[in-house]
């Protein structure tokens, strides 16, 4: 475990990724926004070099033309937190799986696939997890209407 501060880490990452990464923060999190293709590399870097070993939450939001995918990541020994954000287009909703970095992504990615319909490439077993296998559609998409509403 290397000694570092969050600022040093952000600077190092910024030097590596340059304009490919956009850093923003609110009162709760620091967000690293990257293109979908960069997520797996950034995830590996965070886990291997900075000790971010706990992928707490993997979620997605439907913004119409794009889906946003958010990874909330914590470091258990250092007690730091950071979030990765990326957007994938609605008509080509796919991204590399981070299963190889954090195995906990297994079911969390299956859930996003199940409810939001985002495909995770190289996921070992990308099938529905909560809904029946023959269910049609992805209910958390905004164009999926609830019955009677």
């Amino acid at each position, binding site marked *: 475990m290397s000694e570092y501060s969050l600022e040093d880490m952000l600077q190092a990452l910024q030097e590596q990724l340059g304009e490919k990464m956009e850093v923003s923060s609110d009162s709760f999190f620091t967000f690293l926004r990257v293109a979908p293709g960069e997520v797996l590399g950034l995830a590996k870097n965070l886990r291997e070099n900075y000790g971010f070993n706990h*992928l707490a*939450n993997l979620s997605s939001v439907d913004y119409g033309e794009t889906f946003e995918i958010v990874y909330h990541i914590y470091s258990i020994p250092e007690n730091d937190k950071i979030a990765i954000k990326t957007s994938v287009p609605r008509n080509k909703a796919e991204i590399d799986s981070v299963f190889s970095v954090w*195995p906990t992504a297994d079911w969390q990615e299956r859930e996003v696939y199940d409810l939001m319909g985002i495909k995770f490439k190289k996921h070992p077993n990308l099938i529905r997890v*909560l809904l029946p296998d023959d269910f049609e559609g992805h209910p958390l998409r905004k164009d999926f209407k609830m019955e009677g509403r």
Partner: protein
Amino acid sequence: MLETDQFKINIGPVHPSTHGGLHVEAVLDGEIVTDAIVHLGYVHRAVEKIAEDRTYAQFVPYTSRLDYLATHLPTLGYVQSVEKLIGVEVPERAEYIRVIMAEFSRIASHLIFIGSLAIDLGATTGLIYCMRDRERIMDMFEMTSGQRLVASYMRVGGIAQDLPDEFIPAARSFIHDLPKMIDEYEGLIMGNEILQARLKGIGILTPEDAINYGVTGPNLRASGIAYDIRRAEPYGIYDRFDFELPLGTTGDCWDRLNVRVAELVQSARIIEQALDQIPEGETKAKVPRVIKPEKGLEVYHRIESSKGELGYYLVSDGGEKPYRLHVRAPSFVNLMVLPLISRGGKLQDVVANIAALDPVLGESDR
């Protein structure tokens, strides 16, 4: 050598040891489990979709129904996330009452855990003792909220109403009697040789696997990692209390049981401190009747539930309903290791592993 075929045995979805509608397909080679395939979704109620169609305040009762065995904990996580979005200061008294309720929920949930683990392994009497004692907590919840199982007692900005006069004596008497109750469980459940044989060395989860698979809560601490969100990222007023983190050494089912028994004592310690320090005063902050967080605000807020890290990811679009709500359910993530810890064991150990992971299906299926 006899040739053996692999065959499958379904445990659940309707089976007393599955704690709700959990379906596990055990793949057997002779008596040895070679894989356990978990099928979820039997209690899926589309909670996240419903949230997008309810106002922030209307969604509170749904949260109680996520983890119905520890009813105040999911509600606490939700109201705190909304409070973070709109920036509300909760009155001191309400904060203390929340802690008391949250810790009683944890005790109630752990009592169910101990009892159901016993009955899953055939020790029927164990459950009766735990249910008897949990009943006193249910009575206290009824006193305060009118509801026993799904209390919906917390509100954005505070709690629904102040404690009735008879609550504090009841709470103190429960805390006073808890050591005696634990002595009884020690003799009846933990002291039982058969139960020990069924749990020791079964379902070992290494610390590395626990972290890789995102396991949190007592299951993580049973694997020897001192990580508790009440410590790591204190929410509410948890930084004011003195408590220890019980840890396991081997990460087997026996450790998972003992960590929870030890946590009963720690929760009682927190309640005792809260009862001593609780001030008089308001129990609800002034919150707008229609809650409308600013557009584009979002928060991921997590609390230490009785099962592990319970997180809410809330996104606002400036309207009166959440644009997106995601529940990071600890039971869902913890169940992921069931195949891992069951492989190589016997069929009967799968039942012990399910019970020792302590999943609540209302929460994992949402």
